[in-house]
């Protein structure tokens, strides 16, 4: 019952955010949107339509990314037995940027691997899966319970990948560098919606597959030995989960760029609101929270004339929240 209430309020907020994002600009625009002159009225109608449809695609990209970011954060926290770290905080999005840079560096920007968004996506996420699996085998497997250690790994990893990327960019041909920025300078204000055609179906498929895994993840939150005792093939589920995380992070980073703290805020807010450990309700609530943060945040920022970006806003809120969570964890 309590869950239903939370879901209802969040859904209302989501709908409000969407309407706000799509239509609020009409109220503040200095132009007369419904001129009396029939010729101008028709032109205006076309303009409104094109703005709304552009905004709809952007919003769709944000929603897809929000769902992916919050669900990966949720699964990642179960797999690593902590409630603070998320894939972005451990450097997954930085790895994505350096993979893109490496592709241009080694295959040039005129190669099909770079130009075709679909092939590019497949190759980049393939690399991400490879890197995250080996990362897990080498480091995470034996240090799951050490949050501070994992944070350290994340810091080293993201600094390393960023440095590697900027090093490659420095010694790169200037023209190559120019075309690389299309992929690496993606952000929420400069979205890459060209891959929405692949991102949306991929998201739907992995979310459906993921939801079927939730019952196992519920058991896995009891800890490794208890999960094995209850018949969960722990290592297999772990690898599948990591592949999913790598894939989802590739999609969301490719579309809206890195947003470090969104997953952290969404998942922890969902936990606070529901006071539940089951993955399915947490997934629903955290996705809704992430959508509200992204869409409403971006809507408000667009209305203020881009004084700042929603990424900065989320980092500010999320950073403060994370410090609070770490302090709380230390006390208990």
């Amino acid at each position, binding site marked *: 019952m309590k869950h239903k209430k939370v879901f209802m309020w969040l859904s209302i907020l989501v709908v409000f955010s969407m309407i706000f994002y799509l239509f609020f600009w009409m109220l503040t625009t200095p132009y007369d949107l419904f001129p009396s002159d029939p010729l101008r009225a028709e032109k205006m109608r076309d303009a409104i339509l094109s703005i709304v449809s552009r905004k709809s695609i952007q919003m769709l990209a944000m929603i897809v990314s929000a769902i992916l970011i919050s669900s990966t954060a949720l699964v990642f926290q179960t797999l690593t*037995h*902590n*409630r603070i770290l998320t894939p972005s905080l451990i450097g997954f999005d930085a790895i994505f940027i350096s993979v893109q840079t490496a592709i241009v560096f080694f295959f040039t920007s005129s190669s099909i691997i770079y130009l075709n968004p679909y092939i590019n996506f497949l190759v980049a996420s393939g690399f991400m899966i490879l890197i995250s699996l080996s990362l897990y085998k080498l480091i995470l497997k034996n240090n799951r319970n050490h949050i501070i250690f994992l944070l350290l790994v994340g810091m080293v990893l993201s600094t390393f990948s960023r440095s590697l990327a900027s090093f490659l960019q420095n010694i790169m041909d200037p023209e190559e560098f120019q075309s690389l920025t299309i992929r690496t300078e993606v952000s929420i204000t400069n979205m890459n919606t060209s891959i929405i055609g692949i991102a949306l179906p991929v998201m739907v498929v992995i979310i459906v597959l993921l939801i079927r895994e939730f*019952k196992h993840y*519920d*058991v896995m*939150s*009891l*800890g*490794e*030995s*208890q999960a*094995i*005792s*209850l*018949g*969960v*093939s722990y290592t297999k589920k772990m690898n599948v989960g990591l592949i999913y995380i790598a894939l989802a992070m590739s999609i969301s980073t490719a579309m809206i760029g890195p947003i470090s703290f969104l997953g952290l805020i969404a998942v922890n807010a969902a936990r606070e609101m529901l*006071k539940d*450990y089951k993955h399915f309700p947490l997934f629903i609530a955290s996705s809704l929270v992430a959508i509200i943060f992204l869409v409403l945040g971006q809507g408000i920022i667009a209305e203020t004339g881009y004084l700042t970006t929603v990424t900065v806003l989320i980092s500010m809120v999320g950073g403060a929240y994370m410090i609070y969570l770490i302090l709380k964890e230390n006390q208990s």
Partner: protein
Amino acid sequence: MIEMKHITHAYGEIKVLDDVNLTIKEEKITALIGANGAGKSTLLGVLSRLLTPATGAIYLDGVSINQMKSKDIAKRIAILKQTNQLNIRITVKDLVSFGRFPHSQGRLKDSDNMKIEEALQYMNVKDLENRYLDELSGGQRQRAYIAMILAQDTKYIFLDEPLNNLDMKYAVEMMTILQKMVKELHKTIVVVMHDINFAAAFADHIIAMKDGQIIEEGTIDYMMDKAILDHVFDHDFCIAGVNGRKVCIYYQQKETVQETDI
């Protein structure tokens, strides 16, 4: 029947289990004893497939568990490690319901709910079913975990130091319940234990390990022997009889009592 054949396991260069062969006695409580690092927990881990041994195999009724599905093994073998900290908040009832996972895969049927109810009653945690685990005392929490294992409805139950952090009263209560489970529910239980006197009082069979090998095994009467225990623990034991039971004393014996302690 569970058999271990030629099990060897190593962490890096260090051999923790060295060619261990073992058949678990059915419908008995078997206590695994030995000094720290003797390989007891590793043996239990291998027995319950938490660890994959380097060589050798475990046979469950003649079939190697490597060839069985994890889900099917979970219907016959349950293990409880030392209760470690959970980072989720969960009620007793939810925890016990997890015990049905191998049977229900998350969808509880009426028969599952009945088993959960039985387990809650059996472990005397029915009145705590809506309490959160972190609100309970160590003894209550341990009972809740055992209730989960009971709900799992397996023939074999392996417990890794279940008496850790329990005071004497709860420890006795726990062992009495285990005895009852063997007698009434026909379970086969293997327990890793530190307190030899507890093992002697409640187990039916004792297996002693040292340096990754089983060096002695037998009935309580046979195992509670000065020569054997001295050898197992490299320590000086004194065996005494109290109320017709053998008890060992392993501290401050006459010749080692130091004046300064008095």
